[in-house]
């Protein structure tokens, strides 16, 4: 696989990643959301693998494996189990209507690209344009967290943001040192479990995972 081909592939995957981020932003159904999240993980794994293969960085294979394990398999599975146990299948409600969100999202993408452009010039990696996409998907996930009203989509948004970050790490820098990646992965894993615990606690206390119930602590 030549440099250009792999860089085209990575770019393609990057575009895919961004597309999924948009899809998540507009998605109303929670199950689909989880599925999209898994797909995003898959794209991330693929791109990591490509970069690893092209550059011959061994630790990136580990990284890819970790991503696959964690973000494609384990976390979606946990989330599935959770919503099964908690019986939440209803449609996702948003605070702002979806077209408006999409418009803002597009604005964010443009902004991220503009921001990343001068930095991308500096990159000597094969995937220079991807930094902008990574940043855009981080921001889109952020936006998603803002507009969602339920706890579970918020968490998915957070995890998607983590995906964007991972993508930035692999595509822009050929991955962080392994020990860091492991640490980050551990944090994500523990975080997910704690989220899970929380869902139960919240559910127990409020009979719902709607975060509107959690607006009691405020200034008056």
């Amino acid at each position, binding site marked *: 696989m030549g440099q250009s081909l792999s860089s085209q592939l990575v770019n393609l995957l990057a575009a895919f990643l961004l597309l999924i981020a948009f899809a998540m932003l507009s998605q109303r159904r929670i199950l689909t959301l989880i599925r999209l999240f898994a797909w995003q993980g898959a794209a991330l794994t693929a791109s990591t693998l490509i970069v690893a293969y092209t550059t011959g960085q061994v630790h990136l294979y580990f990284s890819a494996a970790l991503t696959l394990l964690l973000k494609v398999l384990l976390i979606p599975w946990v989330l599935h189990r959770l919503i099964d146990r908690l019986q939440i299948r209803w449609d996702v409600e948003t*605070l702002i209507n979806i077209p408006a969100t999409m418009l803002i999202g597009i604005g964010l993408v443009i*902004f991220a690209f*503009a*921001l990343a452009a001068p930095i991308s010039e500096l990159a000597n990696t094969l995937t220079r344009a991807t930094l902008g996409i990574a940043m855009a998907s981080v*921001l889109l996930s*952020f*936006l998603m*967290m*803002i*507009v*969602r*009203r339920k706890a579970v989509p*918020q968490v998915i948004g957070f995890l998607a943001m983590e995906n964007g970050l991972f993508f930035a790490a692999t595509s822009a820098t050929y991955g962080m040192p392994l020990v860091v990646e492991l640490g980050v992965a551990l944090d994500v894993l523990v975080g997910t479990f704690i989220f899970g615990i929380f869902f139960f606690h919240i559910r127990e206390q409020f009979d719902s995972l709607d*975060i509107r119930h*959690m*607006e*009691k*602590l*405020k*200034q*008056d």
Partner: protein
Amino acid sequence: MQAVSSPLSGSLIVAAAWVAIAALSLAPSGNAFFARKFAFPLGTLAGLALTAFGLQAIWLAPEQMTLPLGLPDLPFHLRLDPLAGYFLMLLGAVSAGVSIYAAGYFRDETAGRLALIALEYHLFLASMALVILADDAYLFMVAWETMALSSYFLVTTDHKLPAIRSAGFLYLLIAHLGAIAILLCFGVMSGGRGDYTFDALRAAELQPRWATAAFLLAFFGFGAKAGMIPLHAWLPEAHPAAPSPVSALMSGIMLKTAIYGMIRVIYDLIGNVRWEWGMVVLAIGAGTTLFGVLYALMQHDLKRLLAYHSVENIGIILLGFGMSMVFVGFGHPAAGALGLIAALYHTLNHAVFKALLFLGAGSILHATGLRNLNSMGGLIHKMPQTAFYFLVGALAISALPPLNGFVSEWLTFQTALQAPILKNGVVRSLLPLFAATLALAGALTAMCFVKVYGIAFLGRPRAAPTQVQTAQEIHDAGLMERFGMAWLAAGCFVLGLFPTSFLLMLNRVSVSLTRQGLPEAALESNWLWLVPIEPARASYSPIVFLIVIVCVTLLTFILVHRYYHGRVRFSEPWGCGYSEQTARTQDTADAFGQPIRHIFGPLYLMQRHMPAADDAAPRFSLKIHDRHWYWLYLPIARLTEYVSSKIALLQQGKISIYLLYSFLTLIALLIFVR
């Protein structure tokens, strides 16, 4: 002994001794043994020693010292110059009287309270000494705020009363705001060089704009502590709230540290005084003077009344100080020196007589449990000695010759009469007007103390026996208390009768500050005659005055008794022949102020309840509110409240909104970076 021989180290040892007494007072022992038996007498001795060191320092060259404490770049600097020496003397002498009084006054406190009082009391004294000794901004601020803090805890000794709590709060708040202004003032003075020793501040040449800013900040900051309007609000609340010896310390000494600070900063550190500053000081001083006395006349709580008089006297000090600044600003340092001397002399005088009056009020409170004048009466029969000392204080504060209050007011008048040497026509004609406010205030003070003395000590007891401890229980002050009062009363006489020696001291202070003192003619006159400028222009001899008046009075007495008989019959009061003369027909404190309320009506915010014609139980009640609350304090409080209510809208509890804040912050910063 080498260490003690230097006034600076001596003063420092005194301060350390006070701290040590404070620490020992806390030592757990049966019934606070140390605090009860030794703390206050030892504190008195320390005070006397400090008086001696202060007096000594007035005549010596400035002395400096650095302690290995404080900030790494700014260790504690100490300096004792004549100005500091003068104030140390004030602190030592007045506190000696108050401490010995306190030794008796606090005798019957419970152990816990006594230990705390002794701790805070002596820390308070030590911090005041350090304020005066400080020679860098950091030590000054530390001592200054420690002073505020220790006195705050003293004020809130009886914290179970809500009024005392709110008084304490207000006190510490305004003190702290003042301290913030002072800190900012030091910052302005340092002019960005970052050296905060007073030596460096003294050396700094400020642009006029910045010098004016520094002056305003200092004036605000110290004025808040001194209790000038409109920052006085805490004073009439806090001073009465404290136990009486503490009130005496606060009114007598603590307010004076503010005057000290003002003089130190404006004359010594900023330098190059401008006459416009003087006009500001004069305007505020005149307002403070009149406000203080007019509100004092409205009070029926004795300690509150005295507190308002402290406001007034601060105004008088400011008048002298302001005139001094005007003269110095216009380039008449000799006249300026006279004003400064007048202000400083009044500072000492007020310290002495106000402490005396507060102690007297404390004795009344102890004996009768009363602070309300409307319930007092006839105490001169039960506590004749206290009555005598209080009379001395009352005459002194009313600026009556030959006591001390008169001398300093006289000097202030003399300063005002220097006005013709000024070139500026407006200022020249304004100065005597400021003197007129002083005259008015003096006369009103006399009225007020006729009221106080006449109602508290003279006449017949007003309160029903149930309100007071039964008549037998009312006793004169104890030995220690009387000793303290006698010391201060003697001070009133000494300061009133021998002003010339103090004039020389103050001249030295003035020379050390402004390099200019009184004219030669003034200094050459002998101890008998107080001559501020030259004998032909003005002179006053309290000794001759006293001797003549005593001789004449005695002569009259002897002549009358020699040539006529001394027969006396006693009977019921005549009272124009009216038969129904009960104690309730006497004037009350409120009634006494009635003409003033009538004349100065618009000044007061009155809440009056008049009995109707057919009231079965007619009651008259009157509440006077301070207008400053309504145009200054409450609006500021409301503004703060409003701003914070708007800021609180940021926090609505919605996590999405919070995330949005983070998001927007991020975006905004990213745009900013681009």
